[in-house]
């Protein structure tokens, strides 16, 4: 394997990791505020469908993005309503929303386009196109770093860079602002936050909004950046892998970057090589596909460091009367 093909695999890993990263950060904000979010998958799917549909209708990817974000936010609001206002079971709500997304996206896409649940293919201004960073050509002569800059760093769509930027932003918001401190506190001990005179309900809804936007971006990227149009079930379990990455990352932003990049790399390798031959022993492609899930179970089992979720996660907060 030569240098360029290694770079190409990493390049593809970055693309594939981007939706995972955005969804993982969405889950991070939600779960740090004490709300389990199994519904990442559904939000990605809804956003992907609306983004592609509106981009088709208007010819503008920006309007598509807006529609995708709206769709994802509506789902976030439903999750908030069920788990914050009506103190329902957050896991059940998430499961329900995933099914709702999986069904309703096909229903709407079929009603609008009649293509069996697909949207028409997008092109030109209906998509996010790769951005060529400056000086690519002048650097291309530099050995090692030149190709690295050209293949790996430059030439992604805007949302890839946005996703990467979201990592330090999330870290800053969570660990260096008052809002972040309160958000983390509400996931550990909501009663204490309430005693301090801060609204638990408002903080948790705020986390739902942030999660909705980030998950929405993941969906928008999926149908208008990575792909060119929406297809049935196109999220393909990415929401669950993001959930896995979140546990892998132990609910921290920088670790989330590492975990999603690893899972992106696994996917890239599995896409490129069907069966990997390790000197006589063949690793089947199915094993590569299952690897993120297997790794998560191992992490969850606490064999490789312990993953401790936010303490109040999953419990509705009932104010003392």
């Amino acid at each position: 394997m030569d240098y360029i093909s290694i770079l190409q695999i990493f390049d593809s890993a970055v693309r594939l990791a981007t939706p995972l990263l955005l969804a993982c950060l969405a889950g991070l904000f939600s779960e740090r505020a004490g709300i389990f979010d199994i519904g990442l998958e559904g939000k990605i799917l809804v956003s992907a469908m609306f983004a592609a549909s509106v981009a088709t209708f208007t010819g503008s990817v920006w309007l598509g993005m807006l529609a995708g974000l709206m769709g994802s936010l509506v789902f976030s609001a439903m999750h908030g309503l069920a788990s914050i206002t009506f103190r329902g079971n957050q896991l059940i709500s998430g499961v329900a929303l995933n099914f709702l997304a999986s069904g309703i996206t096909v229903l709407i896409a079929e009603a609008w386009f009649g293509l069996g649940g697909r949207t028409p293919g997008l092109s030109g201004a209906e998509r996010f196109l790769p951005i060529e960073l400056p000086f690519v050509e002048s650097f291309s002569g530099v050995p090692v770093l030149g190709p690295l800059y050209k293949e790996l760093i430059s030439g992604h769509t805007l949302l890839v860079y946005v996703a990467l930027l979201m990592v330090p932003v999330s870290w800053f918001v969570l660990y260096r602002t008052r809002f972040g401190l309160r958000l983390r506190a509400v996931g550990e001990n909501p009663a204490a936050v309430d005693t301090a005179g801060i609204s638990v309900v408002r903080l948790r809804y705020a986390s739902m909004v942030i999660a909705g936007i980030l998950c929405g971006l993941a969906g928008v990227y999926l149908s208008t950046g990575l792909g060119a149009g929406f297809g049935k079930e196109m999220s393909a379990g990415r929401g669950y892998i993001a959930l896995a990455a979140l546990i892998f990352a132990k609910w921290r932003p920088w670790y989330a970057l590492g975990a999603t990049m690893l899972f992106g790399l696994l996917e890239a390798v599995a896409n490129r090589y069907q069966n990997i031959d390790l000197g006589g022993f063949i690793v089947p492609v199915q094993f590569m596909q299952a690897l993120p899930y297997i790794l998560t179970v191992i992490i969850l089992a606490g064999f490789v460091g312990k993953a401790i979720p936010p303490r109040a996660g999953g419990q509705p907060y009932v104010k003392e009367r």
Partner: protein
Amino acid sequence: MEKMPKWADVALIPLINLAIAFALSALVIWAIGEDPWKAVKMMVSGALGSTYGWGYTLYYATNFLFTGLAVAVAFQASLFNIGGEGQAVLGGLGVALVCLFIPFPHWSVALVFALAGGALFGALWALIPAWLQARRGSHIVITTIMFNFIAASLLNYILVNLLRPAGSMDPASGPFPETTNLPTFHDMLAPLGIAFSKSAPVNISLIIGLVLAVAVYFLLWRTRLGYEIRAFGKSQDASTYAGISVTRITIVAMMISGAIAGMMSINNTMGESERLILNSVEGAGFIGIAVALMGRNHPFGVALAALLFGFLYQGGGELALWTKIPRELITVIQALVILFTGALDNMVRDPLERAFIRRAKRRKQRRQEQPEQGAAG
């Protein structure tokens, strides 16, 4: 009286929840430009209008009966088993191995062994998440989701590399021997002089499922183990204090749940396709969640809910065939049922509970006032 009457809890609230879910589904049908009333009529005639329709309705209902019972048993222990899908996939593998590699003289013997094989594989697939939850504190919801994906990959590998007959492109096992084919309702009812559609796949598994439902009832409400499972589900602390082992109940409840999910495969794999195919479970494991929630985790309720979803599934299939409404409508209805009976339950329950309490108070007041009036008059 500080509580609602029992009938409101077990019947009224689920019915209101269901009504909301159906009303929203009708709205969805209307919004995509179809007539909801016509759709309902078509679903009823397609699912219940002929023995063919009934045959499919009951076939699907059998799947959901198994998975619904599986989810319900785990729910009784306060464990949310999303892994019914994966457990049923593995159960299918167990059933297939038994049918393919043991020569059986008669289907009845094959059925007993297939049930055992499906139950064993399903239970083992549930054992690992259960053990991880009990001993390592890993969240059962996450691990069972992960195990669904792992099961899908594992089955894909086994079908493609091990069980696929030579020369076949289809990722499926070869057909099971004829002695393992289960009698369908057509076969069973013909001697009684009742004509039942020959092509409908409903088979003896439905009877097995109903027997299983009764068995689950006895297990949960008439045995010591069942008492422990329910006590554990109500309060983990109290049951630990009473000497119930957390590890044991978690593992036992999950293994029973997995076994029931695994046994579902006698219906779809042994009864219908008569070979192991890639996507034989078709999401029945997930519909089990809706069925269990709808049926309030009681075998009787689960059986009714399974029938309802069997009807929806078959009726939805008819809709997809004759109208422009895609099959995914079922997924939407299923989602709304889970949402309203599961997550948004308090939206209906709280106001209703308040109304009942208010009414009870008023009645009490009136009763207190009446004797005074009598004395004055």
